């Protein structure tokens, strides 16, 4: 029985980690909490549903198309809302409030477009799961874990080994210096939004085959994801993985003993503890401001 909880922890942890990964990549270049990332995740799920079920495209087309649309949504959000704020040199808090506004706007738009009922893109019979070590794991759950691992590896390679990755790291460490060596930070930021939002979209589509789609799914997700990202070390790729898995496991192993309704409170309790005691997260570095 215990292995099932562990397995469930890995599965939900993988989803959290995936969304957190996108969130962290975006944070690296813009340095504020893109709360609206959660609604991009939800939009990805809804788009996947619309393309596959409502329009009837085969999954081989609908899934990549939905991911692409998620990326575009992320770019639109940045261009329309965050870019003007960057031009005004607004403080982080203003970006956060605007992000809340974007989230509220889009989540309710989804509710108007799709209604409040639960949707699911699954068709046909539910397949029997595979038995392993006394627990059950379904095909889609295996897909979630495998896809997450591949994407993590891919993103790690992107950030560490490619020119784009180097540019992202440069903009993240020192935007002014990056500009002086000719890096166009606006374009880098757009890249991080498209990659990050695509990841959110993928996560949304994956989860829609595992559980269901409903308009508030983005809210629950982004809260967990921010916790995972901050606990793991905001902006760090391995941090997102560690944070996401940690949260997934803590939730599923935690509910073993405690009522499941307390999951949110536990997660936020962990966040607040980290914010107070170790804001740089498990893997982050502490920084001190030199001048005032």
């Amino acid at each position, binding site marked *: 029985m215990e292995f099932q909880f562990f397995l469930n922890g890995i599965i939900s942890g993988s989803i959290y980690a995936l969304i957190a990964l996108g969130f962290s990549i975006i944070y690296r270049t813009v340095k504020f909490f893109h709360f609206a990332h959660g609604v991009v995740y939800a939009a990805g799920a809804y788009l996947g549903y619309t393309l596959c079920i409502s329009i009837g495209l085969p999954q081989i087309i609908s899934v990549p198309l939905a991911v692409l649309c998620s990326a575009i949504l992320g770019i639109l959000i940045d261009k329309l809302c965050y870019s003007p704020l960057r031009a005004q040199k607004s403080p982080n808090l203003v970006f956060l409030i605007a992000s809340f506004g974007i989230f509220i706007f889009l989540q309710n738009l989804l509710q108007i477009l799709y209604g409040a009922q639960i949707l699911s893109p699954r068709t046909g019979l539910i397949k029997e799961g595979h038995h392993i070590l006394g627990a059950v794991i379904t095909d889609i759950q295996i897909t979630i874990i495998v896809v997450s691992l591949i994407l993590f590896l891919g993103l790690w390679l992107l950030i560490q080994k490619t020119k784009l990755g180097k540019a992202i790291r440069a903009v993240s460490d020192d935007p002014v210096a990056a500009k002086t060596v000719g890096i166009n930070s606006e374009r880098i930021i757009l890249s991080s939004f498209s990659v990050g939002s695509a990841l959110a979209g993928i996560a949304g589509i994956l989860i829609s085959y595992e559980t269901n789609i409903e308009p508030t799914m983005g809210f629950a997700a982004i809260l967990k994801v*921010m916790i995972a990202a901050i606990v793991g070390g905001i902006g760090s790729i391995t941090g997102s993985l560690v944070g996401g898995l940690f949260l997934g496991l803590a939730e599923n192993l935690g509910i073993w003993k405690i009522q499941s309704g307390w999951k949110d409170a536990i997660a936020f309790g962990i966040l607040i503890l980290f914010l107070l005691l170790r804001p740089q997260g498990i893997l982050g570095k502490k920084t001190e401001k030199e001048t005032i």
Partner: protein
Amino acid sequence: MEYFLHILIIAEIYIILSLSLNLVLGFTGLPAFGHIAFAAIGAYTSSLLALNYGISPWIGLPVGAILAAIGGILIGFPSIRLKGDYFALATFGFGLIVYSIAKNWVELTRGPMGLPGIPAFPFLGGSLDSVFSYFPLTTAFALITYFVLKRIVNSPFGRILQSIREDEIAALSMGKNVTKYKLIAFTIGAFFAGIAGSLYAHYITFIDPTSFMPMESIAIVLMVVFGGMGSLEGSILGATILVIFPELLRFVGLPDAVAAPLRQMIYGLLLIVLMIKRPQGLIGKYKFK
């Protein structure tokens, strides 16, 4: 007429919430994103005292406000040394925790089933259980809140709060114990939010956790920002407009299933537009640093 008064009562409750949040956000510069949690504490306290122990709301309300203030100290104390968006996140998180407690501590709060049949304020042999009798009550409390806060912000104490908003480091160099003043401001804000919560409970006579969800705090932030941070009159304006305006949507004949999310969409859009175009809101003095 009755409907009109009902809207005004709700508006006045939100006015108290906005005024109290403005003290924290607009005058002291603390981005508190969990304000509704203190209303929840006030509401549940006075409701449970009335339902379980027959204690009059006249006593329950101040007790609720005091408990909310204690909640303010407990939540404020750890959060206050966090900066800007981290503080916002932590207070939002605390708001979520309070909501979770309301939803899950069923033995105390009856969880999602809520508390029905909350007694009204007794008065001169009868009770304040109609819009006509409740309106003077909320008006009185809204006025008290406004005048007390006005005295606070127009005093040397209030000047210190604003100096913290303007430049915390300069305030420290002037010998001001910034942490202490932040905590006091935060606690006062919580106190008045607790009052608003009780007023709501004994009017609607039913509360459940959904009345105090985390996003509600963001709506109050919107009211403060929209009306104008650093302007008490702005909070009255902002709360009134943002409560009355969605009611007008009803008259356009939209079905509730569309009107409710549409109202939220407008709130969201307003937040975005305010941040980009006019952070000082309608008549505010402060724009974020």
